[in-house]
């Protein structure tokens, strides 16, 4: 979230899209309802009518996978009806930038596409620079090559008629939403976007969110109270685990994973550190070398020296352009290329796309270490239905893990608040925290390497590991230390003392930090700030529900990111009633501003979007691999064979793998005419591993169902409660029909398209409750993030003769 949970109460309009917030983040609705009581309009755009819809001002059903068409229409509406917040757009976004004259867009493809490689050469997606290296601008927004005009032109095709034809939303409903939401395009109103997996799990997932960012930038809704683009996030510490980069493509603190071409730290820094010649651009990422050096010092301690590149050379380097995420991992596993691995607190046999493939792939491992609270479809994959356990040669090590309540440490919520949780009770039986297992294992391994040698032992033995797992020691390591006596901010620090803020981190090896965004969370001056529980506020903060003394929030306790955009260039809040920061008597008051500099109009002022190298909000976003403007493409499995915006049916760049288990239905496949979307449900959590082990929750939601419209049921001769087979090219799933008015057929390009929905929380380890819905979903993914397209694929449904998976 750019903002935070309590801040939802400041919104005047909500666009809840790609999320079922009331059911999956119920407490968020506490704040949504507060705003609604005060007159805010709450709009829910979603294929299914849910509790979120029931509590919203209105619900608009949308065919899954057509969000960009819907939002593209909104951009067109905002631009053409001049609903945008002009001062904000001109001053704070790149609307006025002049784009490379060679940039073009033709029939669904941007300039530079190589259809053989399915890849863009992005050289033309660039800005024209003046002689000093600063982007050329036309603040009148009239230049035909300026971002604003290109954007206007791009979305001029998204007429209500076309958008309606492809999304299945009536033109009246479209205008109702566009009109209500775009009313926030004035300085004194705020609109917020709440999204979750309903946006990310598409082959255009990143562009869905980009489209929302554009809407928000046009309306001046980023960086202000009650605004923002808010990822509600689906998991308990998904924010923190992303910050600490349990991801192949980054190392902690959003630094890129080293690739083979970057052999030295100098290579790395050269390739990764952005340069801006504009003195008004803060270009925060210019500090990257400091964060990398501090991370390496954190990992390798005294063994890391300037002379040995801080042990950078020991790090694994990935091959440029090779993807090591789940989709490829399990593909390689199936090919027998993986020998062993660790699966901690995760049930991929139920939650990954194409479960049949994932399950078969796991059988190819020599050994696997699984750590869990309960038995799950993953821990017990070797004895799943239909396989002969004796033939599964994989060794399984099952480690009982401690529950959150049985251990201490920090987690980070979606609003980036880092929160200490105390240990309330001892772990049950011999269960242990993950930290105990991993520190224990590493110590054994390091001893083995010290005594026996082996491949590149220094990569392990040079690392700095404690003997036992003490959580708070790691909280300190994450914050970072001064490694020599130092002076910062007029204060003396001794070697070994905690670094007060990331401004003090250095590239010369004199500081350490395991994740620079967390630096400042644990200081000599104030101790462990994640334990702070003080609700104290200034009257200004109280007005907007800002709690600066409660725990700590990255970065530097800034509660709303890009908050310099909430004031005009002289530092006056756009909305004085809900002021976030303000420049008063030569200093900032309110939230921690995005950098200490004076307001933008001052000679030493900076642009608000400090993490963008040029300092401006990106209406034109050249950083994504699949285009600088979001463009509607159909899901890879789509019920249509054409759409009104271009001949490019699906994303030209979506990722996929091609084992024999990775079949795809062709567009408009008559054998599989029905769209399937998948989701969570309230009584069970994600893959269901924990909640299916609570008998009373299982009693309330006992088995796998498929929600379908009355019209579809009638067409298929299915009665409510009938056992049905949901089937496609990849799999076959048994479920019970739930015939409902909450899902209704869509009229798409004049034809009826049916959509059905299924939860994915059921699995075979719970007796006869049904098995993985994800046996149906495809291994195709967004080209930027490789997140699977779990929200839209094609199936057919028929009444079952006999059921075996479900009673």
């Amino acid at each position, binding site marked *: 979230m750019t903002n935070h949970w309590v801040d939802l109460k400041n919104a005047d309009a909500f666009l809840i899209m790609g999320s079922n917030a*009331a059911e999956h983040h119920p407490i968020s609705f506490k704040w949504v309802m507060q705003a609604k009581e005060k007159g805010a309009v709450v709009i829910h755009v979603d294929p299914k009518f849910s*509790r979120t819809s029931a509590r919203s001002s209105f619900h608009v059903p949308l065919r899954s996978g057509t969000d960009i068409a819907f939002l593209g229409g909104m951009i067109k509406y905002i631009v053409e009806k001049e609903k945008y917040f002009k001062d904000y757009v001109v001053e704070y976004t790149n609307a006025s930038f002049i784009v490379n004259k060679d940039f073009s867009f033709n029939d669904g493809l941007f300039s530079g596409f190589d259809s053989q490689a399915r890849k863009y050469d992005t050289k033309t997606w660039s800005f024209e620079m003046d002689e000093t290296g600063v982007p050329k601008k036309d603040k009148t927004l009239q230049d035909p090559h300026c971002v604003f005009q290109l954007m206007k032109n791009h979305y001029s095709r998204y007429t209500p008629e076309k958008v309606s034809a492809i999304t299945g939303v009536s033109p009246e409903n479209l205008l109702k939403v566009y009109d209500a939401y775009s009313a926030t395009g004035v300085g004194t109103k705020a609109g917020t976007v709440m999204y979750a997996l309903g946006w990310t799990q598409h082959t255009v997932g990143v562009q869905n969110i980009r489209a929302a960012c554009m809407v928000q930038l046009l309306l001046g809704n980023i960086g202000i109270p009650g605004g923002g683009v808010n990822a509600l996030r689906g998991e308990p510490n998904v924010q923190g685990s992303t910050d600490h980069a349990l991801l192949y493509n980054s190392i902690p603190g959003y630094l890129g994973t080293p690739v083979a071409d970057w052999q030295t730290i100098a290579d790395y820094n050269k390739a990764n550190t952005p340069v801006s010649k504009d003195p008004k651009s803060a270009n925060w990422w210019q500090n990257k070398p400091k964060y990398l050096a501090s991370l390496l010092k954190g990992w390798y301690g005294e063994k890391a020296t300037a002379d040995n590149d801080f042990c950078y050379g020991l790090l694994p380097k990935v091959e440029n352009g090779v993807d090591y995420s789940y989709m490829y991992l399990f593909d390689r596993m199936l090919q027998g290329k993986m020998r062993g691995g660790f699966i901690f607190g995760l049930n991929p046999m139920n939650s990954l796309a194409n479960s049949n493939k994932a399950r078969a792939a796991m059988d190819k491992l020599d050994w696997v270490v699984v750590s869990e609270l309960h038995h799950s479809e993953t821990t017990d994959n070797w004895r799943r239905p239909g396989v002969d356990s004796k033939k599964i040669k994989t060794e399984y090590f099952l480690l009982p893990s401690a529950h959150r309540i049985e251990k201490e440490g920090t987690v980070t919520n979606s609003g980036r608040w880092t929160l200490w949780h105390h240990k309330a009770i001892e772990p049950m039986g011999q269960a242990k925290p993950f930290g105990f297992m991993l520190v224990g294992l590493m110590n054994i391994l390091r001893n083995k390497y010290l005594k026996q040698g082996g491949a590149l032992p220094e990569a392990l033995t040079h690392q700095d590991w404690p003997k036992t797992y003490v959580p708070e020691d790691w909280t300190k390591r994450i914050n970072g230390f001064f490694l020599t006596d130092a002076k910062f901010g007029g204060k003396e620090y001794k070697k070994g003392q905690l670094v007060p803020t990331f401004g003090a981190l250095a590239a010369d090896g004199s500081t350490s930090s395991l994740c620079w965004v967390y630096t400042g969370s644990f200081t000599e001056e104030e101790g462990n700030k994640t334990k702070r529980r003080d609700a104290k506020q200034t009257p200004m903060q109280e007005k907007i529900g800002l709690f600066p003394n409660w725990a700590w929030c990255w970065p530097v306790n800034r509660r709303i990111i890009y908050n310099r955009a909430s004031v005009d260039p002289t530092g006056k809040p756009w909305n004085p009633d809900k002021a976030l920061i303000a420049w008063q008597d030569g200093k900032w008051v309110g939230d921690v501003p995005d950098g200490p500099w004076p307001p933008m109009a001052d000679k030493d002022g900076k642009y608000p979007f400090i993490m963008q190298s040029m300092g401006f909000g990106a209406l034109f976003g050249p950083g994504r691999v699949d285009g600088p403007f979001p463009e509607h493409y159909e899901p890879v499995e789509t019920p249509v064979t054409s759409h009104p915006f271009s001949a490019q049916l699906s994303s030209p760049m979506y990722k996929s793998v091609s084992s024999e288990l990775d079949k795809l239905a062709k567009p408009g496949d008559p054998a599989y005419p029905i769209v399937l979307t998948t989701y969570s449900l309230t009584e069970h959590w994600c893959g269901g591993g924990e909640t299916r082990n609570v*008998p009373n929750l*299982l009693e309330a939601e006992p088995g796998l169902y498929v929600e379908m419209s009355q019209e579809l049921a009638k067409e298929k001769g299915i009665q409510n*409660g009938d056992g049905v087979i949901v089937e496609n090219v990849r799999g076959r799933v048994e479920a*019970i029909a*739930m015939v409902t008015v*909450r899902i209704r057929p869509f009229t798409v390009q004049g034809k009826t398209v049916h959509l059905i929905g299924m939860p994915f929380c059921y699995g075979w380890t719970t007796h006869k409750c049904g098995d993985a819905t994800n046996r149906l979903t495809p291994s195709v993914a967004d080209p930027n993030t490789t997140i699977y397209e779990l929200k839209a694929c094609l199936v057919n449904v028929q009444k079952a003769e006999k059921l075996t998976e*479900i009673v």
Partner: protein
Amino acid sequence: MPKSFFIDTSRCIACRGCQIACKEWHELPANQTRQQGSHQNPPDLNPNNYKVLRFSEYLDGDTVRWLFFPDQCRHCQDPPCISVGGSLVDGAMIHDSQTGAVVYTEKTSKISEKDFENILSACPYNIPRRNPKTGRISKCDMCFDRVSHGLVPVCVKTCPTGAMNFGERKEILDMANARLAEVKKTFPKAMLADADSVSVVYLLTDDPQKYYKFSVAQNDSGMDRKMFFAQLFRPVRKSASSVLRG
């Protein structure tokens, strides 16, 4: 002093916290339910569920209506079940004069199946259930043990939205009427179901029949012949506390 519930369906989100908390407090075992095409599980009241969340949906023109009804015993002011069955077995079915709770004890297992059917047919809300194994008749007991210790019923404690409320009858009726006035602004059809004759007052936002057949008292199971005669020979009310506490 008599107690009452106020169940505000306009605030219910069907989270089923009440349904599950009720089971846990009364230590009722989980049923082996199966998905039968509804979120309503178990599908009906049963000896292991004194409380069931009922779901109902329909299309109102182009608008989806999804109604939630946490069903439980209404603890009638003048309970027909007691009229019919109160004198069958001493101490089996009690109407507590202090709280207004209608409580069935273990002694109901001595009541015959046929008599149970009469009791059930007398209930305007189709509430009592009989365990065929033990013969015991059961239903919501207003958490009599909790209430007599000054605590609120466990479903009320659990409710996260304020749909479930409990207190002195007068205060509860005031609360219900105040809320009704507010809700009527959005739902002109809103009403309080049988407020005068029951201790469990539901606020409904829609036609009662849209919720559930027995959301309001059903005439066909109301005052039948048996009940009429039963009324003539009505047993003296006993204080449940004297039986249960003693």
